[in-house]
Each structure stands twice: as structure tokens, then as C-alpha cells.
């Protein structure tokens, strides 16, 4: 098999508070190589294109099927998953950078715990009575199930937050993914019971009112989650909640 080499430039950072620097690598190109297989090649011969040996690059991955959301990074300036980034579909040389809106742990690996904390803030779960057998769940029409299903595919990858002009390292904007989860749980027959609590959470600082409707979130979502629809829906729900609060509290 003939192998050609491709060039990959990687933005590296040794620790959260150290300075980033760039390194360039030559890796063999094989049919259907993706970015993960290139990074694995670098692990097998960790040296730069000038032949300097280096520490292997650190990144996060797991499923390699675009369902776990782990391998998100900025590839040629665009945020996406590395496991579905095919080398022959990218322009060259390829650049890899960590997401910019989350603290870097090391190299391409960032800390997205803020997203999980947000899920706690909006109580993104269903309060069940217990795990014992109390029979069937609520009866639900298929079309409503289908609407929830689309939202439930969110893999907390962070693409929508990376792209959002409103979301930054030093504010506490909740972001599109979180709003969409509020919609998901408010749409469940049992989840509805805690709708008010969730809406209170998105009415505060960093909440839905801070969204500038730039709509870039929806363009980058790899799962095609209708984020702007979710934002509009939650916007509507909060408005109603505000009115209710004014009238009854």
C-alpha cells in the first residue's frame, strides 16, 4: 500500500495554567483515517515533523461512534467530534485545538464539568416515587415521545456552547444544551410536576434572557437538536411563569 504523509498542527498545553504552544506532526495517511487514528499514530511514534521526540498528545475519546460526546475539539477552526472527522474530507494542513470556552486540562482535553453542574442547577431529572415495581409508566402518544427523543440525544459534547457568542469562560450563561434539557424534562408527564423549579433556575442570572438569539448553536450541534426551538419554547414557558408569579405570589 502506498502511504503518503499528512501534516497536522496541534495546539498543546501542558497544564491548565501553562502557556499553549504549537507542534507539527507528519502522520501516515491511510484510507478512511480519522483524527483519532492520527492521534493514535502519534502515540505509536511520538515525535514532531522535525524528529524531536515529545510526550504523546493527550485527548479525550471513548465510543469512537459519535455518541459519547467525549472527543469534541476544534478542527480546522470548527468545533466537532474527532472520531467522525475524516482526514480526506478536511483541508490540509489540519489544525487541532482544544475547545476555547472550557478550561484546558492538558493538550486537547478540556474540563466540561460546568455542563454537568448546569444539569444539576436545572434539576434535569424526573422525581420518581421509588425504584420498586409499581407497574407501567405514564401512557404517552408516539408523536410526543418522538419530540422528547430528539432532545434526549444531547451528548453533552459542548459544541453549542463553544460556538455561542454569549457563553464565555468568565460568565455563567447556562447555554443552549441546558435550556434544551429543561424542555425535555418539562415535556414529560411526571417531569412536568417540577417545571416551576426548572423555570425558576433559567429565569435567574445567566438564564434564558441572556440568549442573544444568534442561532449558531443550532448550526454546530452534531445531533441536529432543534436548539432554537427549545430556546423559544423555554422563553415562552418562563414568560408565563413570570406572569403567574406576579399574579399569585
Amino acid at each position, binding site marked *: 500500500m502506498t502511504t503518503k504523509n499528512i501534516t497536522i498542527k496541534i495546539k498543546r498545553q501542558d497544564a491548565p495554567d501553562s502557556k499553549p504552544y504549537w507542534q507539527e506532526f507528519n502522520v501516515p495517511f491511510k484510507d478512511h483515517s480519522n483524527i483519532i487514528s492520527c492521534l493514535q499514530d502519534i502515540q505509536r511514534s511520538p515525535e514532531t515533523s522535525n524528529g524531536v521526540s515529545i510526550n504523546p498528545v*493527550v485527548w479525550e475519546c471513548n465510543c469512537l461512534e459519535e455518541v459519547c460526546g467525549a472527543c469534541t475539539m476544534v478542527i480546522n477552526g470548527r468545533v466537532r467530534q474527532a472520531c467522525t472527522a475524516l482526514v480526506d474530507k478536511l483541508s490540509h494542513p489540519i489544525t487541532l485545538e482544544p475547545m476555547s470556552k472550557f478550561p484546558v486540562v492538558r493538550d486537547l482535553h478540556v474540563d466540561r464539568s460546568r455542563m*454537568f453542574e448546569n444539569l444539576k442547577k436545572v434539576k434535569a431529572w424526573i422525581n420518581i416515587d421509588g*425504584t420498586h415495581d409499581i407497574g407501567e409508566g405514564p401512557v404517552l402518544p408516539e408523536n410526543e415521545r418522538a419530540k422528547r427523543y430528539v432532545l434526549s440525544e444531547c451528548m453533552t459534547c459542548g459544541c453549542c456552547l463553544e460556538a455561542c457568542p454569549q457563553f464565555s469562560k468568565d460568565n455563567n450563561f447556562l447555554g443552549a444544551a441546558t435550556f434544551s434539557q429543561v424542555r425535555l424534562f418539562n415535556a414529560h408527564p411526571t417531569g412536568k410536576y417540577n417545571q416551576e423549579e426548572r423555570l425558576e433556575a433559567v429565569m435567574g442570572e445567566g438564564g434564558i434572557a441572556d440568549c442573544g438569539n444568534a442561532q449558531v448553536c443550532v448550526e454546530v450541534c452534531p445531533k441536529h437538536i432543534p436548539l432554537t426551538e427549545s430556546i423559544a419554547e423555554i422563553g415562552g414557558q418562563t414568560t408565563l411563569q413570570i406572569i403567574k408569579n406576579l399574579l399569585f405570589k
Partner: protein
Amino acid sequence: MEKRPNSFVVIGGGLAGLACTMKLCEAKAKVTLVSYQAVKRSHSVCAQGGINAAINSKGEGDSPEIHFYDTVKGGDFLANQPLVRDMCYQAPAIIHLMDRLGVAFNRSPEGHLEFRRFGGTLYSRTAFAGATTGQQLLYALDEQVRRYEHDGQVTKLEWHEYLEAVIDHDGVCKGAVLHDLRTGEIFTVGGDAVVLATGGPSQVYGRSTGSTVCTGAAATSAYLQGAKYGNPEFIQIHPTAIPGHDKLRLMSESARGEGGRIWVPKKPGDSRPPREVPENERYYFLEENYPLFGNLVPRDVASREIYDVVFNKKMGIVGEPMVYLDLTHHPKEYLDNRLGGIIDIYEKFTGDDPRNVPMKIFPAVHYSMGGLWTDFKDDGHGLIDHQSPRNQMTSIPGLYAAGEADFQYHGANRLGANSLLSCIYTGLMMGPGLIQYAKNQKKVFENVEPQVFEKAAHKWKDRFSKIKSMQGSENPYDLHRELGDTMMENVLIVRDNTKLNKALSMIDDIETRSHDIRCLDTTHWANPTPSFINQLNCMIHLSRIIAMGALMRNEFRGAHYKPEFDLKQPSDFDPHEYVDYMEQKNYGEVPEESFPDGHLAYMKRFEANNERWLKTTIAHYDEGKPNISYEPVDTSIVPPRPRKYD
């Protein structure tokens, strides 16, 4: 005075670990939940097909009892029956619970759960949530656990690695040695019991359908500490996966069902693009060798034939281990209509459009029926006593295992859509027993001599500093690939004793060379290399017992295909004959003429083979060596009978 809360350490945040955590929290216990990565990214997220429960919502007459029978038969009777039966009886409640947790299961016109048929059963028994059932189930459990985390009952240690169990002077597990994958710190946590819900070991084969973290290292570490490992040799292979340099991705069998043709160029090493290979220079090996079934031969036959063409005949595409699965003879509209979803997956990961070019596929390691040996206590009526602390306990007291990491439930072969069920089932079922165990232990972990914990932590600090100082010549990632290739070539579908012996000596060689590794990265912060070197060591030990188990088991059962020991089932044999035969035997002599020619002789062979091999393989690490022994299987409910392979 406030009562001492029970506290547990659960390792692994897949379906099994999360289900167990939820159940323990409900019983007011405190849980430290440990995982390599954010639990929401655990491998369980990959499952697509669905989860089984015999709810009989379509009035087809399905029942937990039939589900139980299908499961033990599918597993060639190598599973302990009370556990399987209990799982099948709990399954409807499990699905209803998951539904209540908000899983977006597909619905029937009336708004109830929808079920579909799945691999081999005659009943609509598989609940599903679109094409991402595993993801949906995992998220629902993750959400419940987050709720308990919010309430302060769960402490999540993500980006932490389990290294070993802390075992006190009485031989009882009282905690775990953990490795903070960011700071590199090694420390211990105490608990009333430790649960290993650490998933499968498919990375032993290098590339597989499993996730990158499925190394089996945690279970192997327990084995190296003396825990028994059950049925290591039983590895399930899926016949059609998309080969990738990083992973082999599952490709649904519906591609063959819709007329996909499997072929390779007749000339080995032919490097022409497939469409330039003229028809008469193509080898449609399934169609030639099986004129009747052609490309629709059963799963195991397809896997074996592909393997034969690639490894024995060396006819893989351009010398690589793959063959073509060709759909290009169908019109585009037809393909979009019937196979749209899977065509998109192929396109996404290869960039090639199967409407225009044949797909390249190869069988892939998919699931491990083997795992840590675990105990159970039946209730005397063919189900499980849910209060028993013995349930899911490994042979090390206080150390438990659940999910794909344990060996129960699937026997010699896993029934499709049963694994998700077994993971959630074990997680939930073991809860009450764990609480009983915690209440009745002789000595709580707070009273264990501190030296026990210090010694355990010290051992691992020492081991990691030794790893970091390794300056040899081998690259650990290369060596891993070599181990995987060795296993793929010699311990996969078709098992031949000469090759298994060869694999064992190659594993020895890889082990020797693993002492000459260079630790590529010796820094302290967020450095994955030393961990990987340690995991590689575990994978080497595990590959050895997989190969040894396979070598020693001289029979052909389930996923373990050893042609040399084929019992040669007559083609017109009906498994019911065996039931008659057993009945007649119970009454005395069996008259020779009561069965068709050759059938009685076959049944006698079957009986004798079961006498010898209907046993659990137990691998036990003792004095630095693996030992293989066998243990009886509980077949008290359904007597074993031949399985018909068609």
C-alpha cells in the same frame, strides 16, 4: 446519636454501576462512584438495538418463562439457571421503571411501550428507544444518580481509575486503591463493600466494537488478587463490522438481509478498485459454498467463512483482513428506503457511499460472556433470594461484580438485547444484599488497621514510579496492537489447538517484551501513559486465560467453535428427540430402533460431551500462575438439550 450510614464504593458508571448506585442511595446508603471518564460517556451509550422483557403486549403468548428458556438455550446451557430465570422475571418491572425514569421508548398506537422482534426469538420482546437505546437508558440512570449527587449522597470521582481492592488481614475487601488521572495522586477509599461494574474487556483484541476504555483491567486486577474469573474463553463475535484504523463499528445484519453480496477478488492482493474487478474474477464464497442459503447463511457460518477466506486463504482485500459486502446492484431509491440509516453510518465513518462502492466489512469482537466469577443464593423455588449478601459477590468477600464485568447470565453465547437487561438487573438486584452485607460485617472499614490502607497505597505508588522510570525500547501502544493482532488471528472465531498454543507462546513473548517498555511520558499532570502501561499488563494476563480456556475446552459450544470437536449433529435431528431419549432412559433401557439412523449415537455423544464439558471454566491466579479448573453449572430447571445450529 446518628446512625452510621452504610457506605459503598462503586467502580464504573455504565448501566450496571449507575443502577446499583441508585438502588443503594434509595436505601439511604452513601456511595462513592468512581469512573475513568464522565459517567455519561460510558460504553453502555453505544448500544443501539434494544432491551428484552417478556411483557407480551401483543398477545403472542410470550412470558418470562419462555424468555428464560430462550436465554439458557441460546447460551448452550452454560448459565446458572436460577439467576437467568430471576432476571427474566424481573425484566418487565425493569422496563417499566426505566420508562418511568423518562426513557423515550417507542410507543404503540395506544401510547404503551412498543416492542419488536430481535435475533432469533419468535416474540416481540425487545423494547427500544429509536436507534440509541443504550444511550437513553444510560442517561436516565445518570440523571437519577445526579439527583442523589445533588442531595449529597453520591460523591462522584470521575477521571479516577480503580487500581486494586484493599483487602484486610481477614481477607475481606474494605476499600479500593484509586488513581486520580489528573493529579496522578494515588490514594485509598474505604467502604463497606466495593462493586466492580467496569464493563467488558474487548480492547484485549485491540480494535473491536467496544469503547477505548473497555480494557477489562479492573476485573483482571481482581483476578490477579485472587478472585476467580469465569468462562474467559467465551467471546462473542459479530459477523459484520466496518473496519477502521481506530475501531470496528457495528454494521447491522440487515444489509445481508436486503440482498447484500459478500465477495473478494479471486487474485489475492488484487489492488484494483472493486468495481474494476470483472464479475468472473470475483469469488462469491458464500454463494459458491452454500448454494441454498448463499449470503443468508447464519451468523456464525458467515463469520467463520469470512475468517477462512481472510486468514487461511489470505484473500482479504489487498491483503487486509476484510471482505466486500456489496449492495451496489440495488437501485439507490431501494437502498435509501430499506437501509437508509446504516448506509449513513457507513458513509459517515468511511466517507464512501455504499450506493456506489461495495462496503468493506469484517467480523469483530463484540461481547465477553466471561468475567469475574460471582455467587448467588436461590430462594429454593428457582428464583433468587434478593436479601442475600452472596448475590454478585466475587470469591473475595466484600468485593462484588456486576454487568459485563461478571460472568453470569449469558452462558456460552449471548442472546441479542439481553446484555443491557443483565446490566440493569444485576445493579438493582444486588442492592438489598449489599445492604445486608454492610449491616452484618464483622468489622467496619473505619476500624481496619490504617496500615492496611497505607500498605495498599504504597504498593501502587511504588509500582507507578517504577513504570515511570521504564526506559526500555518497546512502545506500549505498539505492543498493545501486537497483542490485539495475535488474539484476532489465533483466538477469534475458529479455534484450533495448534494456533491456540502458538498464541500462548506469543503472549509469553509479548509479556517478556513488556518489561522492556519505554514510558513515553513521565510528567505528573494528566498523564495517561503510565496508566496505559499498567492496563496493558492486565490485558496480557487476561489474554492468557482467554487463550488457555479456549485451548483446554475441547468441545464446540456456543461462541466457542472448535471444528475438531464438532459432535456432527445429524442434519434431520430434532432437539425434542433428546427429550424423549432422556425420558426413555429414565424408565430403563432405550431401544436402539426407536430413533432414526445415527441419532441415538449422536445423543450419546452429546450426553458424554456434556458430562465432560457442561461446566464453568474457572481461572484462578495462584502463586503467580494461572490455573484452570471447572465448576458445575446449575441446570436444575431446564435439562440441557442439543441446540440446533441453523
